[in-house]
């Protein structure tokens, strides 16, 4: 059982790191603010999500060792993710709106059709 948790935790943390790195590469590669916001959203949702899921597995594994504070750790991890989930779209929306209000034109493909 402990082995299973450990492996699950590893997979989740590696998945989270993968999405986070891809999101950051996207921030560097994509051409303008609005497209970069999509990549940033990737870091906020799945990157953080899988990383925190992996930490949750670690907390559950701590429960097996009778670690006294495993329950509060789990609650805090879920709360951190809930806050990220609530605040990330609002910040993204505010950024996109501020960019439009500030007169930054969205980049478009020359061909127009994808």
């Amino acid at each position: 059982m402990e082995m299973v948790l450990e492996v699950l935790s590893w997979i989740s943390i590696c998945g989270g790191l993968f999405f986070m790195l891809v999101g950051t590469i996207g921030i560097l590669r994509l051409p303008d603010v609005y497209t970069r916001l999509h990549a940033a959203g990737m870091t906020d949702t799945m990157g953080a999500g899988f990383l925190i899921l992996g930490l949750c597995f670690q907390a559950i594994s701590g429960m097996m060792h009778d670690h006294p504070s495993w329950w509060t750790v789990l609650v805090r991890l879920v709360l951190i993710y809930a806050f990220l989930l609530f605040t990330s779209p609002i910040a993204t929306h505010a950024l996109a709106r501020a960019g439009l209000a500030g007169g930054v034109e969205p980049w478009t493909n020359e061909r127009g059709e994808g």
Partner: protein
Amino acid sequence: MLRAIGLGLALFVFWLALSGHYTPLLLSFGVLSTALVVFISVRMGVVDGDGVPLPIAVRTVLYLPWLMKEVFVANVVVAKLVLDPKLPISPRMVVFRGSQDTDLGRALYANSITLTPGTITTGVRGQEFEIHALSAADLETDEQSQMDRRCSRVERG
């Protein structure tokens, strides 16, 4: 009154979950602080359908698993786009019509759209949602209308 009790219960459960100490003295402090917050909320007049939307909160929690599945699928799509050496993106602005009646439903739909990578809500005017999309593939009308329907269901029950 029922709403105030519901708020108090939710707050106290929140306090219990964060505290981790369960001695009588600290528990009484928790009850006192919860009662104080509920008292202040009632005096401020925020304990109403908008301030404490308990049934909608429950339905939102039930809506989250589907949303997370959608977010995961969209993440994989955007990750493929970003890692493609040719970078085959074709960003565009489009306008959707949502079927939500209340501000809360619209906020939920707009936030769901923004949370899904590949689409960002840049403005809401009445029932029209202005959306910036990363590529044409992100605008599958089937999934969007399904999200629209599910958000409306959360709002109406």
